């Protein structure tokens, strides 16, 4: 039986300890791996001078994939932040699309080469177009939720950011507004301990991002962001409750940034080597695999097969994307206004 045959045979029944089925767990593993391998590939392309800029979620895959799977793709609205490749993959972005984005290609569905990589957006997948300005997206998600509530549309708006972004006024204004109007928004903070070089103490006077929830009287949770299952188990009920009218939630996933801030950054300048070595032992993807193996859910060779499949897929996607057309110079014009014919 090949790995894909095995996958097809995987049960869709919910496992008690997981609140997820084997099929979902496999998808989870696959998405995390895909995210990591894609980013590794992008970083290689960057070192080769073929990708101008990479900003990655490496180390945060469990936090991203676990949370993303709690949403209804194409129904719920998402305002993920630049590290959230894992969220995007779960919401349906393909490896080829991810590579088009990384290379700023003409057909990148996020922004057609107009924005830097990892500035997500997709009308079809209900991913709200993102800028580089951190925390502004939190307010947009509130607006989506307000509108949906006015239309009695039972969607949830999911908005993520880093812990550094919670310092900004827009974070406060977003949570305040959402709480006053009891809007279905999940504010999801991936606390990786750093805002570029600055440790959490420089951004917050409190130990946890969720300590900020008291200011808005909203529900909150902290979750181990290295554990994809725990993340899912935390975010999923919040999504369901928000959908049913319980108001906004603030969820903090404690995770870590495996790599430097971006391809332009050198983290050895400010991050102790031991810290990185220590964290490297807690790689969320390895932890996930260990748990699956321990619980004897999949035979190890199935997991190996998934890895091999991802590897092949990523290489193929990169190769394919490199051959895709660049934007033509005059593609810079058009659509300044939607009212434009495009000229």
């Amino acid at each position, binding site marked *: 039986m090949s790995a894909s045959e095995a996958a097809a045979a995987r049960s869709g029944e919910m496992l008690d300890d997981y609140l997820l089925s084997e099929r979902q767990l496999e998808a989870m593993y696959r998405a995390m791996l895909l995210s990591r391998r894609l980013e590794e590939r992008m970083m290689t392309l960057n070192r080769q001078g073929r990708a101008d800029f990479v900003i990655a979620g490496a180390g945060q895959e469990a936090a991203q994939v676990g949370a993303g799977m709690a949403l209804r793709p194409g129904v719920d609205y998402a305002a993920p932040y630049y590290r959230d490749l894992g969220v995007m993959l779960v919401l349906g972005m393909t490896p080829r699309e991810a590579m088009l984005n990384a290379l700023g290609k003409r057909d990148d569905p996020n922004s057609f080469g107009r924005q830097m990589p990892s500035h997500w957006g997709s*009308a079809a997948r209900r991913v709200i177009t993102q800028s580089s300005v951190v925390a502004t997206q939190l307010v947009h998600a509130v607006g989506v939720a307000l509108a949906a509530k006015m239309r009695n549309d039972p969607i949830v708006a999911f908005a993520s950011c880093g812990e550094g972004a919670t310092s900004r006024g827009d974070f406060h204004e977003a949570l305040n507004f959402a709480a006053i109007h009891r809007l279905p928004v999940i504010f999801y903070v991936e606390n990786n301990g750093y805002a570029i070089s600055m440790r959490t103490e420089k951004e917050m006077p409190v130990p946890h991002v969720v300590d900020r929830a008291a200011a808005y009287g909203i529900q909150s949770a902290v979750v181990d962001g290295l554990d994809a299952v725990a993340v899912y188990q935390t975010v999923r009920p919040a999504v369901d409750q928000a959908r049913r009218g319980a108001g906004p939630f603030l969820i903090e996933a404690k995770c870590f940034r495996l790599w430097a801030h971006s391809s332009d950054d050198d983290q050895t300048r400010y991050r102790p080597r031991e810290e990185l070595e220590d964290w490297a032992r807690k790689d969320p993807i390895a932890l996930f695999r260990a748990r699956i193996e321990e619980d004897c859910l999949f035979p190890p060779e199935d997991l190996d097969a998934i890895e091999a499949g991802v590897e092949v897929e990523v290489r193929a996607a990169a190769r394919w994307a490199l051959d895709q057309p660049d934007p033509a110079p005059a593609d810079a014009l058009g*659509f300044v206004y939607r009212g434009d014919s495009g000229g």
Partner: protein
Amino acid sequence: MAEVSVIEAVRGTLDEALAADERVFLMGEDLEAGGVFRATDGLAAKYPGRVIDTPLAESSIIGVAIGAAHYGQRPVAEIQFADFIHAGFDQLCSEASRWSYRTRGEQHLPMVVRTPWGGGVHGGQHHSQSIEAWYAHMPGLKVVAPSFPADYRSLLKAAIADPDPVLFLEHKRTYRLIRQEMDGAPAEERIGRARVTRRGDDLTIVAYGFMLHEALAAADELAGEGVECTVVDLLTLNPLDRETLLEAVRATGKALIVHEDTLTGGLGGEIAAIIAEHAFEDLDAPVRRLAGPDIPPMPFHHELESFFMIDRAKIAAAARDLAAW
């Protein structure tokens, strides 16, 4: 038919828009009680749940409107005074104005931000500002600044129907001062068009907002002296209607640009530049600007305020001077 003031035109148009399209809703500070200028008087009761008081936080007023428009509603957000919009500069500039561009039109924002601007109301530094120069410099954000009640009506209607974000500037001083007969179907103005309000051969005055009315008064005065002015009402400040502007200036060979905003870096610079580049061969005199002095706009005490504000007398003097050039 009775005369209608600017504020009545605004209120009436909001009312019609709410009635016509259930996606339209209003949001801002104090709107449920009618708004500080009474632009939404009675509307909260008439359209329950569609006139929403927001917290006192301008960045979120604009950001929430962005999200709501993204979803497909048609938010009309109010910033209580234009002077307080600056906390939302980032949301307008970095986000709203770029939404369509950065998704090649796949995502777009049918939203309006209305805000009362302008001076001459003893409002001091933070209740008198002209903000158009900053916000008209954001490709992707349309900026509209009417002068007459009928234009307030047709342009506000157009702004609400527009698929893109529109900043709709309402001059405070005109709210109750300027009245107009509105017959059954006043000529509809479209966003993006300037209008020649008066024709004369000697020089062209370019203005908008309250200054347009002062310019017209000055033109009347000058007509008595034998100086005939063309007066252009810009109406839309971004994108500018270069054709109407240039045609009017070419016909007279002289241009006087008037605005309340401070001179340096004001929108008048752009207009003068367009003229100096594209009507150069028809120019018979320097392109003149009449604008507020380069001091933080604008001082409170009426003596200081009058010193700052441009009025019909100052316009007439500048126009006389230019006509004689």
